[in-house]
């Protein structure tokens, strides 16, 4: 019989993860939030050029799902504006992100596209465009390329509740489904598309119900439970990898900072915000890690400190960097010819 003072072994870690991987998930969620907080500070100093789109409250949905793809196998994902966490999991760095937001010459897009709109297949994530739904057929094409080459790779694409109303979403997921492509579609239902609540977006009871229209299975999960998100995505990724085709995953979550920093959030009630704040994904995960004995507050604080140092160094590096030279705007539309022509009045 165990003595009343003996410490019982921590419960088995779900989803086949190691302790190290559990801490990885914490690291990426905390990094996402802290990096965005840094960006807010820079935004308020007018050092961030253009808008700032936070994912506060959605860190678990982005990180947990991205963690479920296999980068060693060459899986590729397509982030949207609230998926900074997924890009960080794939190896995007705070330096890259800061350069993008601050329109620096050395940004991954050399100042051509803004905020987190960047990425190439080699990096494991594809640069999104603002037209919602459009990334779905593109990722379908990437998944098609995997199938055509007989590669053991999976593509994953994020959509929001709003993007699911677009024609390109419909065409893209339908094409992937009928072609039985290795594509996982993650629908992040955060309740709003800018100011439009999901009830005005679609007549379905649950967004996951739309899967029936494509002949594919769907699953719903708590988007603020990072381990649940990981598990449900992992199963869909494995399914895709084994040739069984597309899965639609609906993750229920909430964005606490509205559409963007310039959004007054007048359409989000205080009561609603408080309810979701109490369900904060990082707070929940900290409780889960510490009460299960998988980690300690001290270990997590260490990670927080490491992140703070990392971000301080990144900001110090990037802030003084220069923006791109004006003339660089003309190159790279095509490979050949390599430069757009200067205007006659601009030839100097």
């Amino acid at each position, binding site marked *: 019989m165990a003595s009343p003072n003996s410490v019982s072994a921590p419960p088995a870690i779900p989803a086949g993860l190691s302790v190290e991987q559990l801490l990885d998930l914490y690291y990426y969620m905390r990094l996402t939030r802290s990096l965005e907080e840094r960006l807010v500070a820079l935004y308020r100093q007018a050092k961030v050029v253009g808008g700032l789109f936070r994912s506060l409250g959605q860190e678990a949905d982005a990180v947990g799902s991205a963690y479920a793809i296999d980068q060693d196998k060459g899986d590729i994902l397509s982030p949207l504006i609230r998926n900074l966490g997924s890009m960080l999991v794939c190896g995007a760095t705070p330096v890259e992100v800061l350069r993008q937001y601050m329109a620096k010459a050395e940004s991954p897009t050399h100042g051509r596209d803004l905020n987190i709109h960047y990425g190439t297949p080699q990096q494991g994530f594809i640069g999104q465009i603002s037209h919602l739904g459009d990334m779905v057929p593109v990722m379908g094409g990437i998944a098609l390329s995997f199938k055509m080459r007989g590669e053991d790779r999976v593509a994953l694409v994020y959509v929001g509740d709003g993007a699911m109303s677009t024609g390109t979403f419909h065409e893209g997921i339908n094409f992937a489904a009928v072609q039985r492509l290795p594509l996982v579609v993650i629908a992040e239902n955060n309740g709003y598309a800018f100011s439009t609540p999901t009830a005005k977006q679609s007549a379905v009871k649950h967004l996951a119900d739309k899967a029936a229209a494509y002949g594919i299975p769907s699953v719903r999960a708590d988007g603020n439970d990072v381990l649940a998100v990981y598990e449900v995505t992992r199963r869909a990724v494995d399914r895709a990898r084994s040739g069984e085709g597309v899965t639609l995953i609906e993750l229920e979550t909430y964005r606490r900072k509205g559409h963007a920093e310039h959004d007054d959030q007048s359409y989000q009630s205080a009561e609603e915000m408080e309810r979701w704040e109490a369900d904060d994904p990082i707070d929940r995960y900290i409780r889960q890690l510490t009460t299960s004995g998988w980690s300690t507050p001290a270990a997590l604080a260490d990670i927080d400190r490491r992140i703070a140092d990392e971000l301080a160094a990144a900001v110090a590096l990037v802030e003084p960097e220069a923006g791109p030279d004006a003339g660089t705007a003309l190159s790279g*539309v095509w490979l*050949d010819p390599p430069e757009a022509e200067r205007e006659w009045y601009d030839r100097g």
Partner: protein
Amino acid sequence: MPEVTYLEAIRQGMWEEMERDENVFILGEDVGAYGGAFKVTDGFLERFGAQRVIDTPISEAAIIGAAAGAAHMGFRPIAEMQFIDFISCAYDMLTNYVATARYRAGLPTPMVVRGPSGGYVRGGPFHSQNPEAAFLHTPGLKIVCPATARDAKGLIKAAVRDEDPVLYFEHKYLYRRIKEDLPADEEILTPIGKARLAREGHDLTIVTWSAMVFKALEAAEQLSAEDGLSVEVIDLRTLLPMDDQAIMASVRKTNRVLIAHEDTRTGGVAGEITARINNDAFEFLDAPVKRVAAHDVPLPYAPALEDFVLPQTDDLVAAARWLAAY
């Protein structure tokens, strides 16, 4: 030398590229099992298999989007629009995603979008369009419009090999009406961005492309026989990037320019060419640059209506005579 139709030349071009490079594949509606609405891809499924000749749902945006994704991964897709009129269903994907991919994200997107354009076939408003103007305005795309069987073959091969997205607008009226002797053993490649001198002359230049080239040549013959005029015809072949040098060289030589296209007048490519001539060769003009184009209406179906709306050889002759007399 075997006589090859314009349609057969496109087939040959695609076939040769698919034999040469296993990354080339075709996707579109009814392209596989049926061999294509106009039979352009007849036989491809049997030879290359279902993986490389994909029958898609009716989803132009997804066809273009999937082609883009595959192109990012090193494939060379040829996406067919069953009638080029349906390319507008993919306008968003083409102009916002495909055209910008290299510039904004360093994402090479070597893909071809092809389909039958043009009228004179009593097809009505949705089976007769010439959409080049809609895309001319989009940095990042290339646009080619072959007139001859040789260029139909040469340009489809060049388009497949180009590292950037190419819109290939073939003309359905020419499919079986144009027959040329094409050498079977020669690798025919037409450079993108280079015009062709279709007929040499020194009194007046007609700048044109696609099916209008043949009306321009007819008009030139008539003007030579009846008016003693020596008319030069430039077949642009590529609209984007346009061969300004060829145009200006001709302007410097003849000093009178008529631009003719089948597309409607307002916002049609003739306006762009006129602006370029004005900018680059104004001193060489002895007359205003004139254009002949379709009337600004949706293309009607009834023969009398279509024949009135679309430019005919007589229209080119009348315009050329006005220019010559100026």
